[in-house]
């Protein structure tokens, strides 16, 4: 097979904001790779620049220094094969559920008929069959999250960038959605860079967990998660390997606060 080119390579990334003549360094000297099909989570204290990192990768933010490569090619402008999942879902309130899911398919240039069929199929896979003509605000937070996930799966990127996607959900819904997402992801097997402040969530989903320091954000430690897949989303947390890892990661984060 030869040397595998990583899906994503981040080399010496620094991002800073200039606001009112004051420069804030959000992330500094970050080096990170995500292999093809690998699930990598980033955890760290709030305000450590986790989201900034994701936005730089998708070129929604311009880095001050460093290089971002996808499949070994330098990223210039918003890349084609990257899907962003936002914390607050970013659903269009004036569009029905099926239209929201249809959006990336329309952008990709499918015919109207193909868009509808595919959107309905995606909605069925996230358990929202029969809700296609509702508006987002008629659904609960968990259901809106499913719509956002269905839309991302429809876009079918090679790399998912997920910015605390389950953050606003209540504890129970988090587990149900997390479980559903894990099962869907295990089927598609695409690369994911996942930002969260929830260590358990990070461990259960990931192949590797990256801990970032507080601002300016640097990579402090990287942990391999040696739990076999497919994993039970909830029960994994009773595994001793899980508990040891959780303890270790927490010690690094607690150190930061």
């Amino acid at each position, binding site marked *: 097979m030869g040397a595998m080119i990583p899906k994503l390579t981040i080399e010496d990334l620094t991002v800073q904001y200039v606001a009112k003549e004051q420069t804030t360094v959000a992330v500094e000297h970050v080096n990170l790779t995500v292999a093809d099909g690998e699930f990598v989570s980033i955890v760290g204290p709030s305000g450590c620049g986790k989201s900034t990192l994701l936005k730089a990768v998708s070129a929604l933010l311009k880095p001050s220094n460093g290089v971002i490569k996808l499949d070994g090619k330098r990223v210039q402008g918003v890349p084609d094969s990257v899907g962003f999942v936002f914390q607050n879902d*970013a659903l269009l309130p004036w569009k029905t559920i099926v239209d929201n899911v249809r959006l990336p398919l329309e952008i990709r240039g499918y015919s109207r008929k193909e868009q509808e069929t595919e959107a309905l199929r995606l909605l069925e896979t996230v358990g929202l069959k029969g809700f296609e003509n509702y508006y987002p605000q008629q659904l*609960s937070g968990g259901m809106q999250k499913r719509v956002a996930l269905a839309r991302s799966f429809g876009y079918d990127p090679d790399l998912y960038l997920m910015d605390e996607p389950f953050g606003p959900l209540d504890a129970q819904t988090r587990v149900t959605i997390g479980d559903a997402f894990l099962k869907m992801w295990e089927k598609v097997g695409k690369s994911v860079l996942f930002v969260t402040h929830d260590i358990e969530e990070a461990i259960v989903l990931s192949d590797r967990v990256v801990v970032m320091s507080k601002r300016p954000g640097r990579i402090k430690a990287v942990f391999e998660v040696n739990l076999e897949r497919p994993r039970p989303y909830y029960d994994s947390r009773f595994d001793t390997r899980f508990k040891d890892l959780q303890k270790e990661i927490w010690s690094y984060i607690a150190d930061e606060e």
Partner: protein
Amino acid sequence: MEQAESGTVLSQPEEKAGKARISSRLQILLGRILTGIVIFGLWQGLSGPVFKSTWVSRPSLIYTRLAKMTMDGSLWFHLSITLQEMLIGLVIGMIVGTVLGILMATSGKVQHYFSPYIMALSSLPRAALAPLFVVWFGIGLNSKISVVVMMVVFLAYYNAYEGIRNLDSDLTQMMNSFKATRLQKLRWHTLPSIAPWMMNSIRLGIGTSTIGAVIAEMVGANRGIGYYISYSSALIDTTGVFAGLVVIMIVAVFLDQVIVFSEKQIFKYRSVNG
């Protein structure tokens, strides 16, 4: 994924609440009719014994005049031209103002070059331009439409501009992350986002365009409700002046109701239960 979370779809409003709403609406309607009767009754009764009826006319006289004007066709003769000026001016003003607002708000630095001048223009008492427009465009339709456009265009401009400035940045980033084209962004995100702002412009624009059309007609015209009002006032025909004003009022209220109705249709997604 077998089942959706419970308690997700909110229940329909209960029948009881619906009945209570109907009865309270009925009450409001009755109250309104009663208030109208009192106001018009006072006007009718006091005009003559207390005020000179040549100053304030009387509802019965105005009614008779309007009936007569409807019969002999002069009402439609004047009203049709005023409506044309208003609506054509409103449409042109809305389109031009909205397009300018969108362009400016998305123009980056360029907006700062123009903003003081736009501000200065918009603070101009634009009714004062009416005589100038009559000189430029003659006493026909064009000068009246120009005045209406001048009055509506800034409304539309500022509303569109503010609408763009208030776009949800998460939605903007979402559209960008999917690599939507400019046209797709406009259709899926920008226009629906600023639609409520545009609706607001149209609603305010109805009143403004009425003022514009009537003032322009008073300055120089040979047709239109504004012309009829100024003609009547030159003859000290108070009833004629009031008849003209009543027609304008009815038109404005009617158009406003049309807007309220279409607002409910267009923005259904906002009023769905939840």
